[in-house]
């Protein structure tokens, strides 16, 4: 079985932690420290596997995030890489071109998606579409957006500025065209 999954940035900031066995807070903190130290110290083109105590650690970097999965010794490391990749694909489908900011601002969604893909340290669903459908259906059930909007506010903010600019330009252009058409004749009086 899988023992834990950690997501952290290149500076070692934790973005997601999923533990599949009961562990004290203190041990969790220590494991997180060990994992970030070990993984961030690895050379860029190293093998993605390392041995840590009695567990195999499989890690992979996607953009600015490290995905670090610990499995028991009898597990298949090459398949574990596929598990990580599948999770990234699921996040990508949900958020659309997922980036670290999405995970930061919507961490609870990242957990919800993970909990439809894995459970108790094992794979729950092998079909991408099934996982996506379950998440979408669950999202529909949410009565009220108690936590905020879907996308992250920074992006929203930029989007709204761009949109307002575009609208403004269109308006201007629109007025220009209308002038040419003599539309404004009425109002000049």
């Amino acid at each position, binding site marked *: 079985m899988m023992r834990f999954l950690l997501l952290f940035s290149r500076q070692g900031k*934790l*973005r997601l*932690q999923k533990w*599949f066995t*009961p*562990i*004290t807070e203190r041990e969790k*903190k220590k494991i997180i420290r*060990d994992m970030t130290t070990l993984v961030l110290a690895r*050379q860029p*083109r*190293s*093998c*993605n*596997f*390392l*041995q840590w*105590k*009695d567990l195999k650690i499989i890690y992979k970097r996607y953009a600015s995030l490290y995905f670090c999965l610990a499995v028991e010794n009898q597990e*298949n*490391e*090459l*398949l574990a*890489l*596929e*598990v990580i990749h*599948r999770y990234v694909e699921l996040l990508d489908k949900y958020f659309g071109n997922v980036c670290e900011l999405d995970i*930061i*601002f919507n*961490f*609870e969604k990242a*957990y*919800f998606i993970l*909990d*439809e893909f894995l*459970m*108790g340290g*094992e*794979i*729950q*669903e*092998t*079909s*991408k*579409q*099934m996982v996506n459908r*379950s998440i979408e*259906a*669950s999202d529909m*059930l*949410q*009565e*009220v957006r*108690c*936590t*905020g*909007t879907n996308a*992250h*506010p*920074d992006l929203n903010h930029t989007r709204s500025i761009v949109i307002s600019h575009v609208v403004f330009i269109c308006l201007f252009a629109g007025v220009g065209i209308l002038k040419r058409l003599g539309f404004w004749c009425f109002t000049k009086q």
Partner: protein
Amino acid sequence: WVCHTPIRLRELIRTIRTARTQAEEREMIQKECAAIRSSFREEDNTYRCRNVAKLLYMHMLGYPAHFGQLECLKLIASQKFTDKRIGYLGAMLLLDERQDVHLLMTNCIKNDLNHSTQYVQGLALCTLGCMGSSEMCRDLAGEVEKLLKTSNSYLRKKAALCAVHVIRKVPELMEMFLPATKNLLSEKNHGVLHTSVVLLTEMCERSPDMLAHFRKLVPQLVRILKNLIMSGYSPEHDVSGISDPFLQVRILRLLRILGKGDDDSSEAMNDILAQVATNTETSKNVGNAILYETVLTIMDIKSESGLRVLAINILGRFLLNNDKNIRYVALTSLLKTVQTDHNAVQRHRSTIVDCLKDLDVSIKRRAMELSFALVNGNNIRGMMKELLYFLDSCDPEFKADCASGVFLAAEKYAPSKRWHIDTIMRVLTTAGSYVRDDSVPNLIQLITNSVEMHAYTVQRLYKALLDDISQQPLVQVASWCIGEYGDLLISGQCEEEEPIQVTEDEVLDVLEGLLVSNLSSPVTRGYSLTAIMKLSTRFSSVNRIKKVVSIYGSSIDVELQQRAVEYNALFKKYDHMRPALLERMPIMEKTASNGPTEIVQTNGEAEPSVVEPKHPPPVGQPASQVKNTVFGLVSRCLSLMAFYLFDLSKTVNFLSIGIPPMTAYNKNGLKIDFTFERANPNPNVAVITIHASNSTEADMTDFVFQAAVPKTFQLQLLSPSSNVVPALNQGTVTQVIRVLNQQKLRMRIKLTYIHKGSAVQDLAEVNNFPPQSWQ
């Protein structure tokens, strides 16, 4: 009144991210926590969900969130799906089975398992399956079993994994899930199929009866696997042209368990394994993942030899793959099979040896381990050449293991004694400081027993000393040999190579040089003093030796002092015993165990029959260790002689000379003592020798000692004697520090080591330096 609406989650995240310092962040967090706490106190239902979500974010940043535990329970009990979603998430993050409130969840989960909405049931199953305690599992197993029989595949797959968790927590409950497993494999839904295979695997691994019972499923599993391989493109499950690799791997693993030790089952799966092994696309990682699992299965079951060879060849091809991960996995698998299929693995020896030159550290390590496993009488010369080359160029982290491996292999398969000695010399000269402490007595024993090579050995060791005296194990072995065979050295006779011409004075110069050098550890100094003493019966310059011995009678090193005093006494009062005591060592039998002999306190001296111990051994010598060795007997003799005949207590003055030693660190069984000397040319330089000892019952490996001093000081740290601190005080690691100081000495030390499998790190201040060390 201003009605305070708790801020939104995203808003909080954005605010916290603007903090420029840790302190600023902490302040924001504390402020928000206070607001959340008062909101909780007001029992606000509307914003509880939002507040708990914020708390979970802050928890991820590392801040305490335990005051939100009960709130998670309230959210779970709410009717709103949004509340339940966050509540269950919070429970999984904040509430493990150690918390008392954990059990309060049981009723909520029970209700939700029977909820009308499948997504609520799903949440409950997920939470139970991830972190349900044994009591919860006992209470709710019945509900899970019910859901395992439902036709709703969404729930069925979750129930299967939940059952796996229940069985892991409460193995006795396994039986109750047996009926529900009856038609699990006839499902078409891949999610259910996958989790069912996981459930069946768990049951088979835990119970031989279950295993026997489920063997009948082999044909069905083979059919499912065949369909996956032969079926056309299925968009829902396709990964780079392979249909549901996750399910394929899981089935292969279950087949492995079912086929192990059973001829019939193994035969039934033979064809499909061959088919997967030959037809799987290898261009992408996913195909190789399946091949890897297939190989593991083939090797574990009773497969026919053709299939086994096919499997090993797949691993051989993996070794040539550009992808590092695949090479690593191949090496790991070959290491597992090298015992059972030795000849097949041997065929890939050259590829494996090439992997020693790989840039990747993980691969190098596996290749080294596998190389040692492949060494045999036929390939020893070639293999050793490669391994010694590897030893020369590898990272320090490998050197100790590699050196040990070389010694072991050489001992087992050396084609000739000369080759053996040469190999040892090579290791000592290239990786001498990484060699384990226990290698020294083993090597000494080996050299003693190679009678015809004595002249050659002592000559080579002498020459090595002329080049370099920093590697302690080399210096110790060399000193011992010179002391033992110095007569051969100066005789100018050597069969194996051109004999060197060296005089007694030159040899004594070298040995005395070791005594005064700051590179020599106290153990090494002990060896060289004893060697000088032994030469008194082999050389004619007895007066010079007497002078040296008497000088060290007032050494501040207690160990040296004791030896020198004893040797002095040997000259003065017991000169008639001297030749017999210092006679050449006889050929020794190998000790029964491989444990380290107590070489630290002792040194190879003469025949034990000369002196009979009249009294029981003194305290401090662990009897079992010294019992069977010549070293031990003689050390006992000498100590006894010292104690009863030489009346040491009157001749040793500990405190009148020099700087007293101190304990710098003593924690978790690791004790570090400092002993002091003043360097001869520059009295402002304090030479500190650290002595690290380990009183726990496990060795401390990869021991690294680092020291830092205030800017006004200058510090030089020399190589340590070893990086393994043996358990139960069986030896010490020593290291020399030179500090240029004229003020009160302060030091910060950092220790890192591996103990019982876990990495330990500690920092400590050392402030209790004796005033004499800096005045």
